[in-house]
């Protein structure tokens, strides 16, 4: 602190507290709505203190879903979301770390060509190639499958770059020493490079977990079967037509369940999260 100005310190705290409250307000109302009966919520004004339907609402969505909108149970949606949120980061890390290894530690004719090929994918987000990608998935018979949900999303230039950047900082002496000791490239990769990459992997995992969990457009396109819905898609499918027709108490309970896992990951693994966020953008 440069100087002591009590008023400004007070003002800073006031602004921050206000900020935290505004940011948390939607979450609070969502939680309150998930603890009431539908009749209580549609009253004007809606109650702002918790009700007594907490267990009842959550039990209902987890086992049976809503009655007016989608009937898929949220337990199966949470399972699908978990599959996406685990398969995408693990797949991404696996294929990126080996391709970065090849690009950094080998000299081969097509090296730069492959490098640019991976690089260009940065410029082709899913949103830009919606229809043709959907057609490819349909032609391959991957609609409504876990493979269709995850495989197209695991190729990523950012992860490859992150590992490439990290490998560049690994001292050459290590590779030299490994070679002198008679270790082949794969031995060096497993015993030296991978253990060194642990923190990079952890950071990447946290970011990609959230990315996978929160996917929207992709599962929206390729899942038509209720049993394949992810939680985020499920919420959307529970909202049918007009406002009055929706079971908002159940939708809000699902929303809480959809937010909980990634929010916990962000807050509990904050160190990795911040590292991953800052590094993937470099």
């Amino acid at each position, binding site marked *: 602190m440069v100087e002591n100005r009590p008023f400004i310190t007070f003002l800073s705290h006031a602004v921050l507290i206000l900020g935290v409250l505004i940011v948390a307000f939607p979450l609070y109302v969502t939680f309150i709505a998930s603890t009431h009966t539908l009749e209580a919520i549609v009253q004007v004004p809606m109650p702002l203190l918790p009700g007594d339907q907490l267990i009842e609402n959550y039990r209902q969505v987890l086992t049976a879903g809503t009655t007016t909108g989608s009937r898929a149970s949220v337990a199966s949606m949470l399972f699908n979301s978990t599959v996406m949120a685990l398969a995408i980061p693990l797949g991404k890390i696996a294929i990126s770390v080996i391709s970065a290894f090849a690009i950094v530690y080998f000299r081969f004719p097509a090296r730069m060509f492959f490098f640019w090929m991976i690089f260009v994918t940065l410029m082709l987000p899913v949103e830009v190639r919606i229809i043709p990608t959907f057609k490819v998935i349909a032609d391959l018979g991957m609609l409504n499958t876990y493979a269709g949900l995850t495989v197209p999303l695991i190729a990523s230039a950012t992860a490859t770059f992150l590992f490439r950047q990290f490998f560049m900082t690994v001292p050459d002496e290590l590779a030299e020493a490994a070679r002198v000791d008679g270790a082949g490239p794969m031995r060096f990769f497993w015993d030296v490079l991978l253990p060194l990459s642990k923190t990079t992997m952890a950071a990447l995992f946290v970011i990609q977990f959230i990315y996978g969990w929160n996917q929207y457009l992709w599962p929206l396109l390729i899942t038509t079967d209720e049993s394949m819905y992810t939680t985020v898609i499920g919420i959307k499918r529970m909202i049918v037509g007009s406002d009055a027709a929706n079971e908002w108490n159940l939708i809000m309970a699902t929303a809480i369940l959809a937010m909980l896992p990634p929010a916990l990951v962000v807050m509990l693994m904050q160190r990795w999260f911040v590292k991953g*966020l800052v590094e993937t953008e470099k």
Partner: protein
Amino acid sequence: MEKRVVFRSAWLPYALVAPQIAITIVFFFWPAVQAVWYSFQLQDAFGLKTQFVGLQNFAALFKDGNYLESFKTTALFSALVAFFGIAISLLLATMADRVLRGAMAYKTLLIWPYAVAPAVAGVLWAFLFAPSIRIVTYVLRGFGVDWNWIIDPDQAMLLVVIASVWKQISYNFLFFLAGLQSIPRSLIEAAAIDGASPFRRFWTIVFPLLSPTTFFLLVVNIVYAFFETFGVIDATTQGGPGQATQILVYKVYHDGVKAADLGGSSAQSVILMFIVIALTVAQFRFIERKVQY
């Protein structure tokens, strides 16, 4: 930058890049090529016959008032999201950088919206602002504001902007906080000794030194508003009322999936690709500049 020490193998490097390259070709290049190919074609209503029409799809798009309107909507939407997202998080980050007590707690309580899916963020805010008298609507009515985003285009735009900004604040906040903490304290102390007020110090020292971060966040926020807000819009207004919140990405989806206009939608995809390329180049220009510092 190249490695001095490399391994030699005729086949191993190819085997190592193969999985990534295979996925890239099947799910990135092949669809992208198809998008370009479809954009030159016209399909009949039943998808039975296609005809090569050259640039006609593009010409039709730029004559289409709806499409040009969607451009304007996207520009307005991304400008609002980027401006408010950056301004609010800069304010919060500056305050968080000042306080000594509770800084960690504030940080934790401000970053969690990053974890919320855009579609869920949309649902939360649409619920708060629901025209059938939900909590914010009720308060607004108390102030004499008649709130109904389902029929009022400006209010619909405001709703999707609020939801999108809310979700993005945590990201901007973290980057600003990191930027602020890397500014040498000696500079600020020197200015304080010369008698500059905190306000003056912010505008003449801190803000200019933050400009690389601000520029970077500007590009990231525009990309975010262009593409990732799809979920927010689909979960709330679905582009309506009329076309008031139909951003370009939503229109690609709407025309391609719902209206099944393959040629027109693909032509829009191709135009979007060019926009992404321009934004990516802008982002990399920024990184090059940072390296030279």
